[in-house]
């Protein structure tokens, strides 16, 4: 029998503190849809998605209902689309993107990730086709997300790809100027991109993964900040060690929920359960913010001195609790700090507490990177590339995933508030210090070699 206090505290977590499952993502390999005929390839992709993913939303809703817990997002992550584009050109890339977009809509999935290329050591012609297509693809599709891996611990940083991505981010933003550059919000540039990440926009199904798999992203930061607030109110005089323990316990709880739901959905769909991603993913909703956790833990606003130390503690405690709760931890598994998607971060940026440089410092101790940051639309492409290179270096040297999702907002200047709506939130355009001062570095091109730490064999 369950104890009544366990039942009542669970009800409180579920219904007052936003305990939910952030995403159940079906990973699906589409390599078998390759065809010399682009039309046939697109039909095969659409058919496969319709047949394999059609039950996902219904299963998530029904199982969520049974447990009284909401599965917020149901998503699809495919194997890298660049593989299918081998031997094809720009037209095929656009046709494939449209097919993926329509197939996702047909099965009621709000985002599909995996329009991706892995170019950390070099580019194939297919990778080039995919990267060249991004401005058109991301401005004309609604549900498709793209990602490009430009660096790994082993290979180092492909600076030619970094430079190209700097140009493409700007081109995508301008191609979607009528949506304030929103196309760029659907592209992530990665170092050490994980094969099993369930979170958008960077989800894809990597090499070594099964034909189909369920990966789950656990609940967000609202549960953690509520637990900390309650504990602090009940017991004044707690130390940071005590609070880290509280985070750990909460992470254990949310991970168990993710695992329970994921396993049941996987069972229903007849596919293996992959991983639980422990990441604390905020939403613009008040009370569901990583920034708020930092405020509870003692800084007036995220970005103030101490923020890096707190987020390091938070990230570590989340992993410790999660690792005990599940043997299948994967994906990104850290705390996200996406400026637009976290109301507290957006407020801190507007109030001058949070700068790009402080965000970069924090990404060295948490996942995932410079995320959902509006920047002036006239930022030079080489400066964007140099920012990417800096972030990739943090990932490569520290053997972790880092990423960049910058949104150059055409016509906007520093401090302008940009509203993307819904889960994508709003934030002020952030300042890029010293724009145009890194061109010579970026133009060298080539590859920054893998660090000495990569020689582990």
């Amino acid at each position: 029998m369950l104890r009544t206090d366990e039942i009542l505290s669970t009800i409180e977590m579920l219904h007052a503190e936003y305990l939910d499952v952030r995403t159940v993502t079906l990973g699906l390999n589409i390599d078998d849809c390759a065809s010399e005929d682009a039309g046939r390839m697109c039909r095969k992709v659409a058919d496969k998605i319709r047949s394999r993913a059609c039950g996902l939303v219904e299963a998530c809703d029904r199982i969520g209902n049974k447990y009284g817990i909401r599965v917020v997002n149901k998503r699809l992550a495919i194997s890298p689309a660049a593989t299918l584009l081998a031997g094809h050109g720009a037209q095929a890339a656009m046709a494939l993107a449209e097919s993926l977009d329509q197939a996702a809509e047909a099965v009621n999935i709000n985002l599909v990730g995996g329009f991706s290329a892995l170019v950390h050591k070099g580019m194939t012609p297919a990778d080039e086709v995919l990267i060249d297509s991004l401005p058109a693809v991301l401005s004309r599709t609604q549900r498709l997300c793209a990602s490009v891996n430009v660096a790994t611990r082993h290979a180092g940083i492909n600076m030619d790809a970094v430079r190209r991505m700097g140009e493409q981010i700007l081109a995508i933003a301008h191609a979607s100027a009528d949506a304030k550059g929103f196309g760029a919000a659907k592209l992530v540039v990665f170092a050490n991109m994980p094969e099993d990440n369930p979170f958008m926009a960077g989800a894809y199904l990597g090499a070594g993964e099964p034909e189909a798999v369920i990966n789950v992203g656990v609940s967000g930061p609202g549960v953690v900040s509520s637990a900390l607030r309650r504990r602090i109110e009940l017991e004044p005089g707690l130390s940071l060690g005590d609070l880290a323990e509280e985070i750990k316990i909460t992470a254990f709880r949310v991970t168990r929920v993710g695992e329970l739901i994921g396993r049941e959905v996987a069972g229903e769909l007849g596919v293996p359960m992959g991983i639980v991603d422990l990441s604390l993913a905020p939403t613009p909703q008040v009370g569901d913010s990583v920034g708020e956790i930092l405020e509870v833990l003692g800084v007036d606003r995220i970005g103030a001195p101490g923020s890096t130390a707190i987020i390091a503690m938070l990230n570590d405690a989340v992993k410790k609790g999660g690792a005990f709760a599940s043997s299948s931890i994967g994906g990104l598994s850290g705390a996200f700090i996406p400026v637009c998607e976290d109301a507290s971060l957006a407020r801190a940026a507007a109030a001058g507490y949070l700068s790009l440089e402080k965000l970069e410092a924090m990404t060295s101790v948490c996942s995932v990177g410079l995320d959902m940051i509006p920047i002036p639309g006239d930022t030079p492409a080489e400066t964007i590339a140099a920012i990417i290179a800096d972030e990739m270096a943090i990932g490569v040297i520290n053997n972790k995933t880092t990423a960049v999702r910058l949104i150059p907002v055409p016509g906007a200047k520093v401090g302008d508030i940009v509203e993307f709506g819904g889960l994508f939130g709003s934030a002020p355009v952030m300042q890029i210090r010293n724009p145009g001062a890194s061109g010579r570095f970026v133009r060298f091109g080539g590859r920054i070699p893998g660090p000495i730490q990569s020689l582990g064999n």
Partner: protein
Amino acid sequence: MKTRYPTAFVLNVIAPDRPGIVAAVSKAVNAFDGNVDSCSQTVLAGYFTLIMVLSFPQPVEPEQLNDAIMGLAVDPSELGIHICRYTDQSPGAKWMEGENFVITVSGADRDGIVLRFADYLADKGININDLYGMTQGDQFILVGQVSIPGRCDVRSLQADLEQLAKEIGHTIRLQHENIFVAINQLRLPHAGGKTAR
């Protein structure tokens, strides 16, 4: 459940709470060389209640056991005792088959809340395995652990219960017990038998 000895009873005791009631019952059992096979006890609003499965190696009559407990109690006049024969073939056991769900109801206290939901569950053949209710200020909270047979459709039960709760301005939730196990306990949630959908 198999008892240790062949002569077995279910004992129920109710009394104003005070130290020594369980001790008196245990001494009485011991006096007949008996064994406590299973027990559950709680105190609610100052009142003690106990249910025990007891077994004895030699024949004992319920009246003998009753008298022994009364004889050992500090204040026998306040003790209510009920004893019946125990059988491991009790028809009650079958009602606990199915998957375990938790029902929570909350809202302003008023007459007939328990009746409203218990009556609906009884009509559906859903057994209440555990029930707890408490008043917090002018609010009443009811927590029931129930077994839902595989033939039942959870969504329609939820819809019906929500309608019943809505009529009196209450909130109700029906959730599979595994969510509570996952969040609060270290044991693994078990898959159960026939899945209620």
